């Protein structure tokens, strides 16, 4: 084959490859975090008294580069069939984190799978919510019969996923006294009412106390209400309290408290007839140093709600702790979120017109937030204020501060309120409130806005560019043509000049020219021969001039 043809074919092939759709696009990679897959491990966990394994525990290692909330979903599969799933959101600081993923025996047994399971991970990071980090891990060989389904193991604290350095103490009310007896694995806690709300304090007597909500599938997921807390006379006494010893986390306690809320979206007219707001209480002993936490607001259109809240609990007394006002950027919608631990019955359609002050605290102390609703997670800064919460540990009492953030989760929106202690001496305490609510009703929520595409191209620019190129071609061609014409004209002029010279004087040959020159030279010699006989005059005139002057014909010339 001709070499030239081969080169041309290769060039054509490369051009075609370059023209493939998307060939020129460079995808921006998610750099918030990555899985350290080499350090993954798995092992079955057997609880005390169990005949077989109760959990399959997988240790996943994650390196985080950005501070913020991370949502991790882990799916356990075999032969591409999923039989267990875990999900959780945690606030992580930069660094490497070990994540313990515990899959329940019941789920594994229901999967009826024997072999090396595949755990698929999906991590939604703060800066790339639409581009989760994926990972997968192959476990050791397991047989589903190794996991005894007859015993449903209690959940580990918080959720089935535990971030080892995440917020470790979740509690709502800062006016609660907690006492735990490690010998009897019992926890007592007292809600102290006080008009100024400042006398409440935590006293942690045992550092591995765990309490968590829900008997459902996940700590954060809504489940059936199994218990309701009844608060009376300043003491919070839940109904049946389940206690026990968790092999990994020590003594635990769990109970449920449920609040009922009515959501009314005045703009859309949709309502969520009953909304469960979950307050969580659990503690563990990992001293948690609370650093300044940036607030990541990952908004969604569901922020654009009018929230009317009705708490069904009758606590009596007073004690509204927190009030928040959330609005969208256009100011068309606001959410006024109030919660309190007291008698709080409120049903109001438009909080923008009237605000009810149920807080015994000074009005100025009521925190209000106005967020700008965005789809993309935007760092809005830290919203912190001193709340009435106080923490006491080893005779150090410090005020708590509050961070607020909103995390969209599908059709629901999760509101995180975190109260944490800034004093490093007592910074082990972090209190989290989690509100999960979604939209229901006859009108769907506003559609998720699509990402703005690239600006449309203007054909006029294309036409102008083409005209400019044509102008360049035309100008260069014209210049080139002109140079040709000028060259031709120059040739014509030379030719014409030569022709005109031929017409005036016939061309002389070389011989003729040589003969003429010889004649001329001879004449000059003869003149020179004559010249010495006549000396030049005094006035210096040349002999020829004198000769000329004496000649009447010459003088008349």
């Amino acid at each position, binding site marked *: 084959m001709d070499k*030239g*043809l081969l080169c*041309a074919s290769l*060039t*054509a092939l490369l*051009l075609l490859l*370059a*023209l493939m*759709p*998307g*060939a*020129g*696009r*460079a995808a921006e990679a998610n750099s918030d975090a990555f899985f350290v897959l080499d350090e993954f491990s798995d092992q079955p966990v057997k609880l005390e008294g169990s005949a077989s394994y109760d959990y399959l525990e997988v240790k996943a290692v994650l390196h985080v580069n950005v501070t913020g909330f991370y949502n991790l979903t882990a799916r356990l599969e075999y032969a591409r069939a999923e039989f267990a799933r875990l999900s959780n959101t945690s606030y992580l600081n930069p660094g490497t984190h070990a994540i313990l993923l515990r899959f329940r025996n019941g789920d594994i047994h229901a999967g009826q799978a024997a072999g090396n399971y595949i755990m698929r991970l999906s991590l939604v990071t703060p800066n790339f919510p639409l581009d989760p980090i994926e990972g997968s891990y192959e476990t050791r060989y397991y047989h589903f019969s190794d996991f005894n389904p007859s015993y449903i193991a209690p959940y580990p604290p918080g959720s089935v996923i535990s971030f080892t350095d995440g917020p470790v103490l979740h509690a709502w009310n800062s006016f609660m006294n907690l006492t735990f007896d490690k010998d009897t694995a019992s926890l007592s806690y007292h809600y102290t009412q006080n008009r100024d709300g400042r006398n409440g304090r935590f006293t942690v007597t045992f550092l591995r106390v765990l309490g968590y909500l829900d008997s459902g599938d996940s700590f954060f997921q809504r489940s059936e209400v199994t218990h309701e807390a009844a608060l009376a006379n300043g003491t919070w006494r839940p109904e049946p309290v389940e206690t026990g010893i968790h092999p990994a986390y020590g003594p635990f306690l769990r109970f449920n408290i449920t609040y009922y809320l009515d959501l009314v979206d005045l703009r859309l007219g949709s309502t969520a007839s009953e909304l469960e707001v979950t307050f969580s209480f659990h503690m563990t002993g990992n001293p948690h140093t609370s650093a300044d936490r940036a607030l990541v607001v990952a908004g969604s259109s569901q922020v654009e709600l009018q929230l009317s809240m009705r708490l069904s609990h009758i606590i009596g007394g007073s004690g509204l702790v927190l009030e928040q006002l959330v609005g969208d950027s256009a100011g068309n919608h606001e959410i006024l979120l109030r919660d309190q631990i007291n008698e709080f019955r409120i049903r109001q359609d438009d909080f923008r017109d009237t605000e009810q002050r149920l807080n015994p605290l000074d009005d100025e102390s009521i925190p209000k937030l106005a967020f700008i609703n965005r789809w993309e997670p935007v760092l809005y800064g830290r919203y912190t204020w001193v709340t009435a919460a106080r923490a006491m540990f080893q005779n150090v009492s410090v005020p708590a501060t509050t961070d607020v953030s909103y995390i969209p989760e599908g059709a629901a929106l999760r509101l995180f309120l975190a109260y944490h202690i800034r004093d490093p001496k007592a910074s082990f305490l972090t209190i989290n409130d989690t509100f999960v609510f979604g939209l229901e009703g006859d009108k769907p929520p506003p559609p998720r806005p699509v990402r703005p595409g*690239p*600006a449309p*191209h*203007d*054909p006029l*620019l*294309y*036409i*102008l*560019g*083409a005209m*400019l*190129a*044509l102008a360049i*071609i035309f100008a*260069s*061609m014209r210049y*080139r043509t002109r140079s040709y014409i000028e060259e031709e004209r120059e040739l014509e002029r030379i030719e014409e000049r030569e022709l005109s010279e031929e017409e005036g004087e016939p061309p002389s040959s070389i011989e003729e020219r040589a003969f003429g020159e010889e004649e001329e030279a001879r004449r000059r010699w003869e003149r020179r021969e004559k010249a010495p006989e006549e000396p030049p005059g005094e006035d210096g005139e040349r002999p020829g001039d004198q000769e000329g002057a004496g000649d009447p014909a010459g003088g008349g010339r």
Partner: protein
Amino acid sequence: MDLEWMKDVFIAWITVFSLALLIISVVSYARTRNRRILLVGLAFLLFFGKGVALTIGLYWPSFWNVTTDLPSLLFDVLILLILYFATLRE
């Protein structure tokens, strides 16, 4: 600064200059019957095809979503300009 508008101009330049060079090479081949010029013309034809494809991708991406980035376009334009003026200089 958004330089996305320059894509329109550059793609137009690529199309027009490659077409001009294609015409020149076809005319030259017709005069000289030199097969090398035919191969050069084939290269310019591919360039012209690229320009047309990019034009389609620019204004009718639903039909054919051909994209490229601005630096590549700039290089293409420079290459074609140099070739064009080199041709003009004989």
